[in-house]
């Protein structure tokens, strides 16, 4: 088998044992890798209803047939588990040398099971696995942990680690790697912490099997150079993803004051232009030639890497417009191993709830100093931080008084930084994201404004979301490669089947990838259904506040406008119809059969769940 190594490393932290397991060519061709592998393994191996923070959950690192090979932007890994944020399938991807080192060590994926009895660090070196004490770094932040690992094992090793937030099982704790990389905002860091797993270190020395290694090298290096050239003219490296902040502010799509407002006159103070001017370093992932990570000094002189999501949600969403302070909040999140996006939403919800008298507390919008203190309390689960560590939805259910309406989350995962108060299609894109309110699956705001109408709830938007899910959440998450060259640099999607052929020898069309993508999305829905047997279509709805006329903007381009509940429901039905899902949003038996999921359908039938 070319392209895949054909082996998965399974590690049991309870018994301190490990074994390499082979997988079949059929498995590889059915699920490709990354999200496909993780979804299938978790669906098959997890008993329904397990505690995501208990020893029965499994932490997976999954790579794909493009991982680590010399093609554009292949230095990413996918981390996955049952999510402590949503109770469904959770994953995330991050730039890391693990993508290269784990493949060189001889594995396409890693499954970590059980729970260590003391803080542990896994050290994987080719066929050997060490279970080493992590006492030297337990209780430390991710920067110190990473530095200690580099000092001990050298800077070329692949590292995944967690901070205090992961150790204390904050439900939106992330996994960290390299200088500013983070992934798994669905609580993957908390799953590592629940297993007392502080870090994974990987070092490999073997070649990665490829069908045409010389061809791959020639094409890959050529295309890495070309992506670099394009990016220098027009890409993310100029202002990072934060370039989009100004645009969101202009078109009433920026989250301001817990998404209550859609723009702010001071937004320019934290925009991409200001970030570029403050740049002190530029970071990227392995095998990347379009480095999008702009770092600046925060207000305490520390180097903090910023992008749009964390600036928008830790800045304007908290009504903080001092870029140095935003950088400081971002640094603390990174060091504690807190997801910047969820942290921003949780804090904005807390400020909003206090402002509305739905709870009491000493925090207000615009108070960066108090936000820093709260972050530490969340990471350590101290005081009110213990409740906020469970996420905005959990806090709202505790506060009561209708506050759930403005807890900005879907399925338990806090909102990505796009204010969809009057952007119906993007609201749907976040609503039907299988991991909760995250933007990586589909983003259609420019399509809505430019190619159709902001007012439309028509099927063209549902179809566009499916088209993008197939590419973003399907192809890129399964071959495990960064979507940015395609997304923002116009690097043609047709390059990817070509890379896939050079790696695997398989002559696949894009339609073949769409079939895999649809299969993975259907399986994620089955996973959700098995964990939430009473689920219905309301789990794909955004927060009630976006439908509330009283929350409409009073000025600007969408003054007086808000989402229409019945029309959104109709748009959602378009999506279900196009997908072949029932009225609950669950794939029908026919759809499952068509996607080759008959066996998975049988297991779902055991619970009496299909219609």
């Amino acid at each position, binding site marked *: 088998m070319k392209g895949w190594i054909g082996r998965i490393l399974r590690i049991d932290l309870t018994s301190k044992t490990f074994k390499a397991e082979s997988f079949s060519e059929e498995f590889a061709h059915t699920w490709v890798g990354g999200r496909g592998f993780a979804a299938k393994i978790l669906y098959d191996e997890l008993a329904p209803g397990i505690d995501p923070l208990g020893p029965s959950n499994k932490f997976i690192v999954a790579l794909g047939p493009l991982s680590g090979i010399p093609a554009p932007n292949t230095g990413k890994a996918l981390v996955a588990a049952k999510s402590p944020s949503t109770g469904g399938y959770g994953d995330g991807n991050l730039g890391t040398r693990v993508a290269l080192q784990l493949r060189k060590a001889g594995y396409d994926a890693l499954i970590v099971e059980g729970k260590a009895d003391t803080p542990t660090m896994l050290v994987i070196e080719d066929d050997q696995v060490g279970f080493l004490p992590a006492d030297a770094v337990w209780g430390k932040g991710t920067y110190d942990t990473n530095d200690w690992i580099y000092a001990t094992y050298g800077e070329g090793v692949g590292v995944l680690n967690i901070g205090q937030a992961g150790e204390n099982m904050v439900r939106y704790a992330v996994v960290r790697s390299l200088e500013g990389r983070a992934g798994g905002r669905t609580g993957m860091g908390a799953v590592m912490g629940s297993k007392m797993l502080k870090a994974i270190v990987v070092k490999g020395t073997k070649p990665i099997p490829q069908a045409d290694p010389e061809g791959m090298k020639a094409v890959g290096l050529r295309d890495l150079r070309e992506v670099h050239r394009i990016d220098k*003219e*027009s*890409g993310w490296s*100029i*202002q990072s*993803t934060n*370039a*989009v902040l*100004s*645009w969101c502010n*202009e*078109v*009433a799509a920026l989250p301001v004051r817990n998404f209550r407002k859609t723009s702010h006159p001071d937004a320019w103070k934290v925009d*991409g*232009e200001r970030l570029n001017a403050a740049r002190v370093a530029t970071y990227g992932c392995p095998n990347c030639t379009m480095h999008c990570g702009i770092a600046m000094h925060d207000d305490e002189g520390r180097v903090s890497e910023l*992008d*749009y*999501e964390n600036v928008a949600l830790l800045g304007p969403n908290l009504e903080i417009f001092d870029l140095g302070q935003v950088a400081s909040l971002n640094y603390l999140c990174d060091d504690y191993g807190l997801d910047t996006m969820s942290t921003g939403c949780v804090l904005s919800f807390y400020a909003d709830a206090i402002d509305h008298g739905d709870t009491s507390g000493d925090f207000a919008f615009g108070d960066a100093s108090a936000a820093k203190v709260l972050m530490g309390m969340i990471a350590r689960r101290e005081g009110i931080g213990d409740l906020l560590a469970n996420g905005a939805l959990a806090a709202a259910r505790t506060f009561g008084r209708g506050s759930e309406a403005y807890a900005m989350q879907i399925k338990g995962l806090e909102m990505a930084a*796009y204010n969809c108060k009057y952007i119906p299609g993007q609201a749907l894109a976040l609503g039907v994201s299988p991991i909760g309110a995250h*933007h990586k699956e589909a*983003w*259609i*705001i*420019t399509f809505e*404004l*430019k190619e159709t109408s902001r007012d439309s709830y028509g099927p063209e938007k549902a179809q566009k979301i499916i088209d993008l899910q197939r590419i973003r959440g399907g192809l890129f998450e399964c071959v495990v490669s960064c979507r*940015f060259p395609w*997304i*923002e640099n*116009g690097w043609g999607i047709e390059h990817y089947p070509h890379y896939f052929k050079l790696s695997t020898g398989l002559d696949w069309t894009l339609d073949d990838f769409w079939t895999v993508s649809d299969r993975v999305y259907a399986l994620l829905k089955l996973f959700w259904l098995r964990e939430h047997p009473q689920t219905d279509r309301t789990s794909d709805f955004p927060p009630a506040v976006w439908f509330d006329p009283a929350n409409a903007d009073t000025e*600007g*381009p*969408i003054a007086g406008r808000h989402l229409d509940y019945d029309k959104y429901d109709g748009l959602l039905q378009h999506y279900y119809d196009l997908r072949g899902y029932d009225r609950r949003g669950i794939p029908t038996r026919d759809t499952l059969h068509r996607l080759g999921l008959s066996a998975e359908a049988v297991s779902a039938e055991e619970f009496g769940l299909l219609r």
Partner: protein
Amino acid sequence: MKLTVKVIGSLIETAGFSEKEFDVPAGTTVGGLTALLTIDRTRPVIITRNGHAAADGDEVASGDRVVVSPVYSGG
């Protein structure tokens, strides 16, 4: 008539400004405005006028805020 033009991201370098007020003749269109200001359109852009998507043939009006941005795709 006076209006404000803002350009975003990578377009700033070629335009030579990020936000500026201009005096243009009545009847100027969106497309005419971007040509007049030599804004790079070799790659796709999205143009908004007062927060709403605008077409090249739309006439601008006094007091307008015209924003020219690369077409972002949400990271």
